[in-house]
């Protein structure tokens, strides 16, 4: 009697495992954490476009996405320039750096901003979503966006200069997500 029960239990468990194996074989990328972690270090428009396209694409595929904006990458998530209450050096940085995504230039062939305008007009011509639309879409799709607080302070960027609704964090915030991510990119 006991033997029968044990056999049944075992058969049941084997069937369960077989189903699980088949399931995993069908979806090789499926796991406990289907996450993508992006470091946006660069403040160039072209690289920001790449980052936002990867982020929105990944989020659409059902992946969890974390974006970490650090150093020059802060330019991609700024909304304005504020000079009040800053020292001379900070004011200099504020003057020299883009005040928003719309002010960023290309990493190549920028020609004092003309290149960026050409790329934007080409994107429009080819019906590619604008960098701003991609950013808004990323937020809408639930992409986690974290601003590196250390570089924010270093560059003298005030909270009020950043787009609303972003998180603040540090290297461990990034690594906490990156360690559980299948894809990590430094852009």
């Amino acid at each position: 009697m006991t033997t029968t029960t044990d056999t049944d239990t075992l058969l049941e468990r084997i069937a369960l495992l077989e189903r699980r194996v088949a399931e995993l074989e069908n979806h090789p990328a499926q796991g406990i954490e289907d996450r993508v972690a992006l470091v946006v270090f660069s403040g160039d428009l072209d690289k920001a476009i790449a980052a936002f396209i990867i982020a929105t694409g990944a989020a659409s595929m059902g992946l969890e996405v974390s974006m970490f904006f650090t150093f020059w990458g802060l330019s991609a998530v700024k909304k304005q320039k504020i000079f009040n209450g800053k020292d001379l050096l900070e004011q200099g940085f504020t003057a020299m750096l883009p005040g928003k995504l719309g002010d960023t230039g290309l990493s190549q062939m920028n020609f004092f901003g003309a290149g960026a305008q050409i790329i934007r007009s080409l994107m429009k011509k080819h019906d590619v979503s604008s960098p701003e639309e991609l950013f808004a879409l990323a937020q809408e799709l639930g992409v986690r966006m974290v601003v590196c607080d250390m570089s924010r302070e270093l560059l003298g960027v005030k909270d009020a200069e950043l787009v609303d609704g972003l998180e603040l964090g540090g290297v461990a915030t990034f690594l906490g997500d990156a360690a559980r991510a299948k894809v990590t990119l430094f852009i």
Partner: protein
Amino acid sequence: MTSFDQTLDVKGAKCPMPLVKSRKAIGDLPVGQVLKVVATDRGSVADFQGWAKTAKNVELVGQETVNEGGQDLYLHFIKRTA
């Protein structure tokens, strides 16, 4: 022709919009139903294969390319499985 329940027109949309719009549409679709996506973006062919390979809740049940008025249309049939 693969059978389907609803159609989504993403003609003219470029990467990553066909995927983004399809993801939204599949979220509104009852489980078990098939969405037919009509795209003009050539990259969408490989994109939808990649999506189906990665996502837990979708299955690519068919892909076709048809020519309509001199324009290539890429049809993707995706089933919501969960």
